[in-house]
């Protein structure tokens, strides 16, 4: 048998991992009670950070873990990094793991950048000699050549994270666990960091990336998983998972349920197959039949010039007798970032429910302020009334292109602006 021939392409293999934290409840005790029962056990609240999560990460993959605050994504990273011990399930790895839960953890403000690089290098598993050898590269990447012998406490926080991120790139580990460390420096440096991570991946390293920023998840990760309340909601292609994350965040009903239930267990489970329908109990009460953009004469179109009106149209069908609430037309960037939304209240029909199978046409005409580029339209239908729970969602209901317009450097056209320059000011005016 040739054990080396077993072609294993997995970097991480997580099977039903669970983690429960016991949070001691703070109780006020009198001194007498404390003295009489010195070893009295303090009460605990159990916090289920993870409940039976399973996933696999391929070697050389850029893998995303997304979810809202408290969904358990950082806990997964800390379990993989051997910072916490799991309560249930098993985890396997086929390479050395280096966690970067926070940038600059081992930094000592009293030491110079040079000494810190060596100290952190050894913490990451390099020898002191190796760390010294790589020092120039680290400083070079961080663009800190003039400050190598300055004590770290005299660095700006931006300089510190830049140094820390450059160090991360020197890790010799095969698997890097990175938690929300992308907010490094200015936009140009962030871009440089992203490119550097992609180069690491191209060298065959595996990168597990936790983030709130769906743009970077969709841009860098190939696959991702979405967690909610310690459970795996969906797994798959990163852009689809990012969309699902938006959906979960936009669903005000989910947030309301979360607030009402302090144990953190949701009564409505999100639909795990990532379909476009909202996770309402049973089948959705309405569905979107069709959506399109049309021109002045009512012909469907997908490309539009600058300055024209965007005419959004959608047909909604009731699947059972239902009162229709507001419908939102939301314009998104291709990776799912919202630009704006227009709400349409079906006023005339208020109080008159739609019968099963009945369809209505809704529309909104909007001045086109979008800059040149590609956009996608998403639709949301909400319950009528104050709670406005989302009852139907359709991502990518239509896509369109804005074909002209001057580049403004952003998503919207620049509003007309009068610019002044070189106007000499007299002393009195100052």
């Amino acid at each position, binding site marked *: 048998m040739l054990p080396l021939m077993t072609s294993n392409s997995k970097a991480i293999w997580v099977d039903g991992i669970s983690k429960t934290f016991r949070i001691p409840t703070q109780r006020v005790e009198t001194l007498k009670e404390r003295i009489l029962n010195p070893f009295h056990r303090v009460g605990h609240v159990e916090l289920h950070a993870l409940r039976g999560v399973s996933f696999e990460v391929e070697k050389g993959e850029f893998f995303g873990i997304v979810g809202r605050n408290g969904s358990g994504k950082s806990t997964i990273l800390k379990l993989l990094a051997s910072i916490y011990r799991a309560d249930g399930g098993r985890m396997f790895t086929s390479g050395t793991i280096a966690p970067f839960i926070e940038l600059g*953890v*081992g930094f000592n403000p009293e030491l110079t950048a040079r000494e810190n690089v060596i100290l952190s290098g050894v913490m990451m598993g390099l020898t002191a000699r190796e760390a010294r050898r790589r020092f120039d590269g680290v400083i070079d990447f961080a663009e800190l050549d003039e400050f190598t012998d300055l004590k770290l406490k005299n660095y700006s926080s931006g300089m510190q994270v830049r140094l820390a991120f450059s160090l991360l790139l020197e890790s010799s580990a095969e698997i890097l666990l990175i938690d929300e460390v992308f907010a490094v420096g200015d936009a140009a440096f962030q871009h440089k960091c992203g490119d550097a991570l992609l180069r690491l991946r191209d060298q065959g390293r595996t990168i597990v990336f936790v983030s709130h920023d769906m743009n970077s998840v969709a841009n860098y990760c190939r696959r991702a998983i979405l967690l909610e309340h310690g459970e795996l909601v969906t797994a798959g292609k990163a852009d689809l998972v990012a969309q699902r994350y938006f959906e979960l965040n936009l669903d005000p009903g989910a947030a309301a349920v979360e607030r009402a239930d302090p144990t953190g267990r949701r009564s409505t489970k999100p639909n795990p197959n990532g379909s476009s329908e909202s996770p309402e109990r049973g089948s959705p009460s309405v569905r979107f039949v069709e959506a399109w953009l049309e021109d002045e004469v009512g012909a469907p179109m997908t490309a539009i010039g600058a300055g024209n009106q965007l005419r959004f149209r959608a047909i909604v069908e009731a699947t059972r007798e239902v009162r229709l609430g507001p419908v939102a037309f939301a314009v998104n960037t291709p990776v799912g970032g919202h630009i704006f939304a227009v709400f349409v209240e079906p006023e005339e029909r208020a109080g008159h429910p739609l019968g099963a199978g009945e369809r209505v046409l809704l529309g909104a005409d909007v001045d086109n302020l979008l800059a040149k580029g590609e956009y996608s339209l998403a639709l949301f239908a909400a319950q009528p009334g104050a709670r406005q729970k989302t009852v139907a969602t359709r991502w990518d209901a239509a896509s369109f292109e804005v074909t002209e317009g001057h580049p403004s450097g952003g998503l919207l056209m620049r509003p007309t602006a009068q610019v002044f320059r070189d106007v000499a000011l007299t002393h009195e005016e100052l």
Partner: protein
Amino acid sequence: MDPREAGMSEIRGPSALGGGWIRFFRLTWLVSITDFKLGYVGTYLGYFWTLMRPLLLFGVLYTVFTKIFRFGGTIKDYPVLLLLNIMLFTFFADATSRSVASVVSQESLVRKMQFPRLVIPLSVVVTAALNMFLNLVAVFVFMLIYGIHPMWTWLLLPVLLAGLLVVTTSVSMLLAASFVRFRDVSIIWAVLATGLLYGTPVLYGIETVPPDLRAVVNANPLAPIFEQARVWIIDPSAPTPADAVGHSWQLLVPLGLTLGLAGFAAWFYNREAARIAEDL
């Protein structure tokens, strides 16, 4: 698929040594050296203070025990004995008292890195040991000036230091790990450490202790180390630990306590290591 057949290894969670022996020793050494260097950042006299602190303590104690209580005069070569003992005990007291809060104060390393937990108290002990080595050089210079003749038994000093290191490390590990959950430990240890200063033959010789109390003093794992140091380093005619208690089998008590302490500390620290990040 069984992941182990595919050559994958299981992730078992945090441990005292985590990440292999080589990284463990490298880290301990580097952190110790860094702490050693940083100990005097911002002071004008630097390392000088490491020496001056026990020397000043020596000055006070020497005055008290030779001019006020006067029993110091009855002990042969009392000044050098007192100086040696103070340097050794300062190591024990410094290392243990700094270990207490060491893990808690390095919270970010424990919670945000794959950091072998044992490195933290161990590096505190190593830093204190580096200070002690430098101080011992000064003690030997002082002894030669005082007129103690070099003896071959000086070469046995490492044996004693090894014993002292085992006791100090064990106590430091216990303190650091238990402080995470019981903050009372720091107060209790402040009192206990002072108690040990008087319960160990540091300021006095074992022959000063009434015979029926000697067995009690000698049950203290530190006591035989200090008694033997006196015999080997300063005065070969002083009572050995065995002489002091009468029967050499009674030395099994401090020896057993030392081994028991070390074993318990290793077990306890290893058990707590897995939970430190959560309990902090």
